[in-house]
């Protein structure tokens, strides 16, 4: 171990009140200043702000600091930010240690501020003791294959493959179904472009096929994964189509007719049947139909007609592929209501929105369901969404828009239908609001119910009777009959335990795949090299799907394209003096990281840094305690424990002193200009006159949300105040507190 660090800088963040509202920063600062090795302690309103970062860099340089502790939010958010600060200041990034005093202190203990302050001191002390012992380390470089596996060839997966390929990454695109396009090919006209989903799928498919560095596998499922970031190895099972290449269209039609085996057509959500030899829809891609071997009884009828392309004895295959990164784009399932939910599967004319979409597509110029002409249609909203007490608490976001869009589309196609919308309050956010106007203009009727009083659907003489307590007419009980009830169902996570088990992808309480951080790292998972995008992450329309898809593609490409990945040097290390080569560590390590080497006349274990993942599982099994994980050695852990238990001795402060100290901090904050740049610009803008948030946002060319956030912090610090005045749009004005 190198000499202990003795010139440590400690930076304590107020986080605009998120920490300092609950932790007495001034007290913490005074106590920390007395710790061994601490050269200076500074508190800052936002440590992560650009100006604060510059101040820290200057501090480190001017004072020749040899260690740094930042006490702020979770390191999951800003570890990289401050490592970068250390690097800019010429300090080794591993001589900086982070202390989490927000998520694990001020927020968790906002109910007990004195004890939160006490805990903050202990957490920072532990970080200081760790930094004192910290070594100067370099990252380990490992080779990465510039190939990505994209799982799922819906619009998200295909777009991802195209993007990655254009950035120079080879792509294996793995689709479970025999046809590409996912859900979008099922929806007919899409909002807002009015382009049929099939066309969008067709365009993307051709782009995929044009690129030589994309290999598409359909009927393909991942069975196992080995290795890790940079070098994953995947076992893929491929079910063949049992048909070789495209056949003549006329023959294809005859073959489809000749096949006698039938099953409910999943593509049409069971509204129709399909044969054992089938295509999802006539224009589905790849063009060649497929034989469903689970259904086919090998009667041989098709073989009599076909020109030799059908080969029922094709074999299933298992292939192995290698990739540096994996992107999951496996989409979602539309919610399937429970039997009896609003009469589903009990009252004849109750169907789901997804079924209605297929019904519109498969009907000519008249709308017919179960042989009956449809005139009056009732849409019941939020089925399988916003269920506070049930499984699906989330709003699926797409469904209000989709239901109204579908109703407008249906009315355009089938002139004499009438639409009745039974909603829980319409959420056609953003530009989608114009649809609502179109629908109202064409004469659609709207009712609204609340969660406590749900509408009901019953059978009445072959029609559906809908009863609703309508909030729009002062809770009047309204009853009407409809020929068809469309349940506006939400989006739920795809039932796919398999992938969760194989990849160990974390899932949230809503069962969708979970990113590292909703705002800051929205497409990465805790598993390095594994990314998520599109409908498998949360309910999304195509626009939001594409935004996350492009982000994930860019992230994956930038990780592997250089052929090298820098890994943390946090690996196991064997002390050869203590090792007596017993092989226990070698037996235990599943990553084969141990080698046998000679050391001063004896055989000892040595860790191969590129193979070691740093899990540390080997460390407790060594009988001579010869193994430690770098930065988590016995000494480091044990001194951290000592720092936690050592008593914190506060001098008692009176309420007046507290108030003075707070005023001092505010003063201090004002003086030292640690304000984020935007806060400062807002203050400058308010110099001239009081202003409202949207006006400030417009003037500074930034988002209103950002202005709001900074404004609230400035108000908390007594630097601005709200006025009673409003502008012409009825927004309150804020002014400087002089």
């Amino acid at each position, binding site marked *: 171990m190198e000499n202990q660090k003795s010139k440590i800088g400690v930076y304590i963040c107020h986080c605009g009140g998120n920490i300092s509202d609950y932790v007495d920063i001034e007290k913490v600062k005074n106590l920390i200043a007395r710790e061994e090795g601490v050269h200076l302690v500074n508190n800052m309103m936002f440590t992560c702000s650009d100006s604060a970062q510059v101040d820290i860099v200057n501090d480190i340089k001017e004072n020749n600091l040899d260690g740094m502790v930042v006490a702020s939010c979770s390191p999951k958010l800003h570890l990289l930010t401050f490592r970068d600060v250390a690097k800019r200041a010429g300090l080794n990034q591993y001589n900086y240690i982070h202390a989490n005093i927000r998520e694990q202190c001020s927020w*968790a203990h906002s109910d007990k501020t004195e004890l939160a302050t006490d805990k903050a001191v202990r957490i920072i002390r532990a970080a200081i003791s760790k930094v004192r012992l910290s070594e100067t380390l370099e990252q380990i470089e490992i080779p990465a294959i510039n190939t990505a596996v994209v799982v799922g060839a819906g619009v998200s997966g295909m777009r991802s493959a195209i993007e990655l390929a254009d950035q120079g990454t080879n792509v294996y695109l793995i689709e479970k179904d025999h046809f590409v396009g996912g859900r979008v090919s099922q929806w007919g006209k899409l909002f807002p472009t009015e382009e049929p989903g099939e066309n969008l799928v067709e365009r993307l498919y051709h782009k995929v096929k044009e690129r030589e560095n994309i290999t598409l596998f359909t009927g393909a499922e991942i069975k196992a994964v080995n290795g890790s970031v940079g070098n994953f190895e995947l076992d893929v099972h491929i079910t063949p189509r049992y048909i070789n290449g495209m056949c003549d269209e006329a023959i294809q039609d005859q073959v489809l007719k000749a096949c006698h085996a039938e099953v409910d057509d999943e593509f049409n959500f069971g509204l129709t049947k399909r044969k054992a030899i089938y295509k999802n829809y006539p224009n589905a891609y790849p063009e060649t139909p497929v034989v469903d071997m689970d259904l086919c009884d090998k009667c041989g009828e098709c073989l009599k007609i076909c020109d030799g392309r059908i080969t029922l004895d094709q074999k299933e295959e298992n292939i192995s592929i290698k990739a540096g990164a994996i992107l999951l784009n496996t989409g979602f399932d539309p919610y399937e209501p429970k039997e009896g939910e609003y009469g589903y599967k009990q009252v004849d004319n109750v169907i789901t929105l997804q079924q209605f979409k297929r019904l519109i597509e498969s009907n000519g110029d008249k709308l017919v369901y179960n042989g009956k002409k449809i005139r009056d249609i009732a849409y019941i909203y939020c089925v399988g969404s916003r269920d506070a007490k049930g499984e699906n608490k989330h709003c699926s976001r797409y469904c209000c828009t989709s239901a109204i869009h579908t109703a407008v589309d249906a009315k355009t196609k089938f002139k004499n239908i009438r639409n009745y919308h039974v909603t829980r309050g319409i959420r056609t956010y953003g530009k989608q609001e114009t649809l609502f106007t179109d629908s109202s203009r064409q004469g659609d009727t709207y009712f609204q119910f609340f969660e406590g009083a749900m509408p009901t659907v019953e059978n009445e003489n072959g029609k559906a009777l809908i009863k609703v307590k309508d909030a729009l007419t002062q809770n009047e009980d309204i009853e009407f009959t409809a020929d068809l009830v469309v349940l506006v169902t939400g989006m739920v996570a795809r039932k796919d335990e398999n992938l969760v088990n194989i990849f160990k992808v974390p899932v949230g309480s809503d069962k969708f795949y*979970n990113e590292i951080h909703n705002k800051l790292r929205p497409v990465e998972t805790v598993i390095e090299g594994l990314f998520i995008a599109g409908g498998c992450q949360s309910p999304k329309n195509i626009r939001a799907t594409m935004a996350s898809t492009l982000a994930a593609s860019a992230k994956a490409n930038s990780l592997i394209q250089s052929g090298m990945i820098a890994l943390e040097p946090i690996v196991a290390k064997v002390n050869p003096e203590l090792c007596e080569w017993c092989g226990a560590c070698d037996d235990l390590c*599943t990553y084969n990281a141990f080698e046998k080497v000679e050391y001063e006349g004896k055989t000892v274990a040595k860790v191969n840094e590129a193979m070691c*993942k740093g899990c540390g599982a080997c460390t407790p099994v060594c009988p001579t305690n010869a193994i430690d994980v770098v930065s988590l050695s016995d000494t480091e852990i044990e001194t951290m424990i000592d720092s936690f238990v050592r008593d914190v001795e506060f001098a008692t402060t009176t309420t007046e002193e507290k108030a003075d100290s707070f005023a001092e901090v505010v003063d201090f904050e004002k003086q030292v200009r640690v304000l984020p740049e935007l806060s400062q610009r807002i203050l400058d803008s308010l110099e001239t006159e009081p202003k409202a948030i949207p006006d400030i946002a417009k003037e500074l060319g930034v988002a209103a949300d950002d202005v709001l956030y900074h404004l609230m912090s400035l108000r908390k610090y007594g630097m601005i105040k709200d006025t009673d005045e409003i502008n012409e749009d009825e927004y309150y004005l804020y002014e400087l507190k002089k």
Partner: protein
Amino acid sequence: MSDYQPKILVFSSEKISDPAIDLAGLLKKHYSPLVYNITLQCTSSVKPRWILHALRSGIDGVFIASDGTDCAYRSDCSDLTNKSIAKAQEVMKEKGIDLSRVKMAALCSVCADPFVNHMKSFSETLANLGSIKNEIGQKDG
């Protein structure tokens, strides 16, 4: 229930259980402020001597938030961690330290509620046992 406020040391893992502890804070779900956390890569690396050091230094209980089957490194992470715990407990038994002062449970990355509930029940168990100092003091001389 006793009024004693026990100190708890948590060993968590960087990728799975530590995010759950963060999430508890983010959601302002409260637990005892005498809970301190050391984040490791994987809890299978906890050495029995760390557990013993903590107890000897005045930590009343050690809670290991393992990743269970979610562990990104090893599917047997909880089994391995259990082995270290068992070794520590052998020594604890010898020294007359109550074995329930060390506890392991698997947490997923969004297990904020389970974490808080574990902290509440573990605090209660430890409060009833009283200070570790008494236990070590009495029995170990």
